[in-house]
């Protein structure tokens, strides 16, 4: 397998009956920060659980550090730090006790690093973590995930529900983590502003399907918002349109080739699109497609 990817998914499937993860394929290049975007319930957590071999998949292949997870994932987890949206530690455990537990689990557990992180995050080592605020709990998880010399951080919504200051602090921690060349992050979030600050790559999932993936800057560079009057929409080439949002003020069209749109329609305004706008339009577009497919049946 290709060692240039720290994570590689090929046609991964998972069928829950009411939700299907459908042929999910994407790669996370080594040394990059990959933002895994999607609205709640899009399949981010399921995908992460499959990568961690925490749930059985119904098909496809998963490679982590170039190795097939079916050949033994436990050993690979020595190099992976995991952070979830909820803490997961028992409320009565103190960070000091968590240190005792973890140093007897991870071969590379660095006690000093853990207590340094506690200090850095102003976390008391002898207080029960059930009494911590949400931000403190998240920082405790991050401290735990980063104290065993992990090369890959897999995080599921680590910044959701946090105030902007704490979120910024956490983003800063991730930035410091990826200074090392071989360190990578897969960061799932629906808060696109966080990802715009830190991500190199973006994978966008909606309703269990990957709708967009690639270099974040290239995706932002490529997409644009074309603004025009309602009656001008039909003049726009369909191959350029991702989604149209019509309001009383006019039409806002997400186009998949900003440069081409500017050339073809010089009279119309083409603005830059942020990740959030791109995400919203792609979700609307897939909804519209599924509605038209259903009504066509």
């Amino acid at each position: 397998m290709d060692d240039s990817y720290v994570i590689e998914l090929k046609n991964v499937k998972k069928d829950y009956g009411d939700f299907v993860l459908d042929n999910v394929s994407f790669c996370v290049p080594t040394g990059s920060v990959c933002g895994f975007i999607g609205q709640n319930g899009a399949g981010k957590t399921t995908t992460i659980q499959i990568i961690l071999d925490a749930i059985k998949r119904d098909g496809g292949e998963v490679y982590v550090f170039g190795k097939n997870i079916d050949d033994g994932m436990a050993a690979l987890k020595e190099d992976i730090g995991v952070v979830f949206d909820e803490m997961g530690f028992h409320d009565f455990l103190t960070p000091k006790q968590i240190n005792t537990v973890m140093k007897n689990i991870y071969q590379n557990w660095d006690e000093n690093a853990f207590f340094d992180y506690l200090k850095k995050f102003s976390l008391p080592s002898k207080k029960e973590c059930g009494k911590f605020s949400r931000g403190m709990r998240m920082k405790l998880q991050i401290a735990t995930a980063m104290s065993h010399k992990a090369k890959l951080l897999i995080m599921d919504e680590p910044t959701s529900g946090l105030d902007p200051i704490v979120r910024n602090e956490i983003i800063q921690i991730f930035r410091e983590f990826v200074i090392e060349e071989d360190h990578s992050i897969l960061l799932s979030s629906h808060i696109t502003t966080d990802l715009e600050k830190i991500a190199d790559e973006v994978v966008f999932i909606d309703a269990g399907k990957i709708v967009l993936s690639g270099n974040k800057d290239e995706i932002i560079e490529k997409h644009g918002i074309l603004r025009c009057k309602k009656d001008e929409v039909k003049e726009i080439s369909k191959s350029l349109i991702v989604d149209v949002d019509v309001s009383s003020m006019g039409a806002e069209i997400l186009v998949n080739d900003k440069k081409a749109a500017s050339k073809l329609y010089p009279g119309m305004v083409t603005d830059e699109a942020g990740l959030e706008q791109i995400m919203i339009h792609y979700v609307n577009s897939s909804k519209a497609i599924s509605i038209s497919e259903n009504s066509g049946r």
Partner: protein
Amino acid sequence: MKGLIIKDFYCMKKQFMNYVAIIIGLVVTTIMFVLSFNYGNIYISRMDMIADGQATLADTIEVANRIMIFLMMLPIACAGDLDGLFRADNQAGFYKIAAGLPVTTAKRVASRFITALMFVAVGAVIDIVISLILSMLTDIVKFSEFANTIISFSSLMFIYGSVVILLMYVFGTKVSGYAGIIPFLIVVAGLVIAGFDGIKRLLVYEDDTVIRQYFNSIHTFITSRSYVLLIAAIITFGIIFPLSIFFADRKKGVA
């Protein structure tokens, strides 16, 4: 794996004070019973019963012996709440953390069995200490009887714990209440089947000596044939451990 066992013990630390209270209560009650049996009210009552011809000296010693033997069950039975451990993990969402740990499902299951064994061992050690104290205070129970009893009860509790672990992996923590009751029902059913003849005699022929015979046979079994239960515990573990791994693996280690 060691870390998971330490985590389980931290979970049980919450119940530590209750456990200490049970043990202190047990020790105090047993010592008071022994003193009363030899010098106090129980001594007076049993002497009266002997004088009235209601019982012989041997009968009264036999009853005291039974009481003390069955009291030995308490420290082992109360040492650990295995289904409580599963529930605590589930409530905290620890299975998510566990999914990210470099520990195989087999090792996760093994850690639960080691925890169960260690809970039983804690109870057994406390029982040994109590037995030593009581053996010095009285001749009602011999230390060899105590030793056999401790092995018997420890084996029974380990069988019970193993069944609880298996049921947790098969049915999940949603049925944790049943996971505690089902093994108990199995033991009761076993006792009923084993004593079916006696129960029939009691109910059909109203032969009440059968109850005494029944308890005598259980007592003899516990105090002199502990090796049978020990072998049963080893065999049960041999069957239940791989089965638990099988079911846990299907659920990727999540109960």
